[in-house]
């Protein structure tokens, strides 16, 4: 019964809502991240978002909104740099990633009361999610769901065979930028839940397990959403009962599931 009365706290309800929205995003966007092999880009976007969060803090505006802005700019920046300039994509990611982190730390240090919040952004603090954050997270999730629903056929074509897609007239570069922007949105939501450092694990683990057992993209996405939701709920319970950081509890739950599924499928 201890497990259920945590829902009587508003911060717990917010945490659960944010976590479930994150699970939906991971389930859908995470699969595209895996299939398009943009895991490193996604991690780079997460780190670069920190620059925006720091700026928001410094200027006294909503850090999350600024985080979204800088994540999207980074996504577009990486996309354009690697296709236009003579810089390889992973070099561009490395530069954006480190610059964002450095900027974030610098700006947070210059603002007051940074230490607690710095920790929260790096390692996640889902219990500090406010009602405003929940509304922002839910609307981002709705936008991404709508985009994937509308562009399902195009995203499949892009993920499977971009060379062919371009040859038959799909606007490949715009679509790829859009995908990166959707990754940026998702990543910012996940930062709230598990923190910058661990975003990539939650983005990829549910999909990686799900595709091992299920066939067809829609079922893999559904399986991945369910797994993500389970990880969030179990992680939250562990965090609540043992009084340990929620981000770490969620990621460790996911990691245990991942290793178990690897052992079982052998």
């Amino acid at each position: 019964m201890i497990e259920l009365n945590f829902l009587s706290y508003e911060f717990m309800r917010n945490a659960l809502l944010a976590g479930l929205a994150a699970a939906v995003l991971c389930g859908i966007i995470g699969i595209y991240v895996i299939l398009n092999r943009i895991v490193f880009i996604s991690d780079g976007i997460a780190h670069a978002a920190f620059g925006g969060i720091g700026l928001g803090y410094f200027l006294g505006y909503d850090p999350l909104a600024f985080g979204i802005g800088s994540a999207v700019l980074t996504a577009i920046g990486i996309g354009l740099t690697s296709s236009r300039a003579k810089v390889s994509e992973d070099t561009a990611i490395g530069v954006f990633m480190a610059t964002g982190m450095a900027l974030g730390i610098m700006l947070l240090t210059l603002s007051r009361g940074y230490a607690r919040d710095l920790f929260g952004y790096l390692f996640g603090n889902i219990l500090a999610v406010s009602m405003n954050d929940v509304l922002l997270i839910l609307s981002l999730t709705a936008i991404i769901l709508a985009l994937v629903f509308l562009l399902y056929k195009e995203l499949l074509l892009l993920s499977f065979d971009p060379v062919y897609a371009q040859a038959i007239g799909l606007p490949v570069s715009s679509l790829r930028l859009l995908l990166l922007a959707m990754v940026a949105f998702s990543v910012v939501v996940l930062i709230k839940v598990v923190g910058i450092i661990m975003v990539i694990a939650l983005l990829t683990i549910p999909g990686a397990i799900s595709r091992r057992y299920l066939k067809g993209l829609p079922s893999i996405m559904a399986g991945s959403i369910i797994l993500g939701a389970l990880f969030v709920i179990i992680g939250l319970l562990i965090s609540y009962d043992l009084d340990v950081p929620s981000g770490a509890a969620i990621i460790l739950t996911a990691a245990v599931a991942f290793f178990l599924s690897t052992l079982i499928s052998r």
Partner: protein
Amino acid sequence: MAEIKERILSIRDLWVSQGGHVVLESINLELFAGDFLGIIGPNGGGKSTLLKAMLGLIKSDRGEISLFGLPPARARSRVGYVPQKTVFDRSFPVKVQDVVLMGRYSRVGLLHRYGTEDRNCSLRALEAVGMADRAEREIGALSGGEQQRVFVARSLVSDPDLLLLDEPTAGIDSAQQTDFYELLSHLNCDLGKAIVMVSHDLTAISTYVNKIACLNQRLYYHGSKELSNEDIEKAYGCPVEMIAHGTPHRVLREHD
């Protein structure tokens, strides 16, 4: 008595350069309904670039290309394309039929969904390449030769009049290659698809095509199935002994 055939492709004085280097120089080419053109040439000779130009993916310095009397980018629904060895994740979760459906994109367009008609077309295209019984399988579960057939089905599903194939048999074993060429021959002779195939497999190409061109920056082409030794030497930059003798059809006319 000269039968007038529809002109499918016309390239006039096409020049393309990339990164400051001329890749294609004064290309002239005409193709008519029923043609099966093989383009051979050394690596880096511009074969893939020429195909991309035909697909409207590359800007030319000068000259013009028209497909069915239209600029290439507007003729896409009448052209089927099979890219050079499709690199994809073998465990990509997609069914064969869904891969074929992707070829309908040029007809269906952005934001629209595939309908019953599209699904029927994809099954017919799979039948045409002998892969109808594989429709529900995952693409990664098929052999290399079978996958290549599926990619041909994908190019056929928009019911094109012209097929462009870029080294379609790379990475397929020789038994499957023969089957594959037979399939192309069937599409050309029985279904009336004009075909342009880029290849460096001279032996195979000489058996199945009815026109041949050699490309190395310039295009050596006489509207026929014959190239002179001189042409080939110019294109490859050295005498070439790779034409198999004793095949049913010769690429080279005997010179005295």
